């Protein structure tokens, strides 16, 4: 990765971060959910550049998000996004091998895992039914995944679903 690409990625990351701050909260079945567009950005980094870059990006964006959005669980975003970065970075290793459908399925599974880890820590110790917990994870994952697919189909020429 040369310097100009690094700068481009950083600028893009900052733009996505600003967008994330202004993204509205969506009410689905009484659950207030804010789509995490940073993980969509991480999917592209993982697809184009590899694990190391995605881990670093995930950690950096996560830690900024941690300090900006909350104070009770500082580190939760950095932790879960670092793991997600490792997972999504795998796509670059098998870019020419994996079929696009498998790649999309893989991203969805990664999102599910990410939201599972995030919500497991966030909702730990609270009295919440397993069904509601699974519902929250699926809604968040499907929401982010849908945004990714829409964005990829409509704007990206060489995206993850092509």
């Amino acid at each position, binding site marked *: 990765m040369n310097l100009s690409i690094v700068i481009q990625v950083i600028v893009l990351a900052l733009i996505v971060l600003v967008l994330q701050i202004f993204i509205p909260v969506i009410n689905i079945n009484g659950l207030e959910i804010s789509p995490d567009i940073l993980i969509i950005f991480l999917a592209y980094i993982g697809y184009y550049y590899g*694990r190391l870059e995605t881990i670093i990006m995930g*950690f950096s964006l996560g830690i900024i998000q941690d300090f900006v959005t909350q104070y009770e*669980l*500082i*580190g939760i975003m950095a932790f879960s996004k670092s*793991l997600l970065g490792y997972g999504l*970075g795998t796509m670059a290793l098998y870019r020419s091998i994996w079929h696009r459908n498998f790649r999309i399925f893989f991203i969805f599974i990664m999102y599910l895992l990410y939201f599972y880890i995030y919500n497991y*820590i966030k909702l*730990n110790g*609270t009295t919440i039914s397993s069904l509601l917990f699974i519902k929250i994870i699926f809604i968040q994952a499907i929401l982010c995944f849908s945004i990714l697919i829409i964005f990829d189909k409509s704007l990206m020429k060489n995206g993850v679903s092509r």
Partner: protein
Amino acid sequence: MHRSRISCINKDVLALFITLSLSAGLLFSNVSPQIQQLKYQISELCGKVAYPVIWYKNILSVQEENRMLKNDVVQLSLLNSELESYQQENKRLKELLNFTAYQAVNYQTANVVNYHLGVANQTIIIDIGELDGLSKNLPVLDENGLLGKTIQLSDHAAMIQLITDKNYRVSIRIGKERVLGIFIPTYGNYGILEGVRKTTPLYKEEIAYTSGISEIYPPNIPVAKIISISKEENQPFQRVIVEILGSIFNLDFVFVIL
């Protein structure tokens, strides 16, 4: 190519390890209930994972402990047989000297219901009295030692003159030679032993017991322990300062020897 692939994977893993360590460090520095719960779950998991190791170590330590205990059992059984022979010998010698048999102490337990800790007179009231079988001049003690004696009685209460009362005296025996002396309270939890000859060897922490000479106190009730000993040239007796063994200032219940 193979080598570069390996180093690439290692770099990824290293980056993941570093970022996860940093974020986990941050995460666990929080004090929110979620993190407390998470810490508890992790420690529980670690306990379960480490269980076989601990179990194996326990087995080894139990074996070692068992070996040591067997050793102890052999030594103690030897000692026991020696003591049994001493007991037989002691019994035989007592019979030769016409010693009377030891009588078990009969006592009643009483609750302390009131305190009077004046400068000179120090007494307590207990919740048993004449109708419970008490009479005047019965010794009172706790699990540590002598506390005093009964001085006044009603049907269901009794007044106890404490060992710390200025007018209290008790005859004691002390040292290997079991020499006689008089215990006199001085201040607070302390007192002195009067009448102990200079030639008597005494040591700190030695315990003075009731002598059994008095009509009130049976022998061998612990009274006080030595905290300092001094010998003055002009005096025929040692100056022995002692600390009372009974928990005078923390009384809950007492025993009255009948």
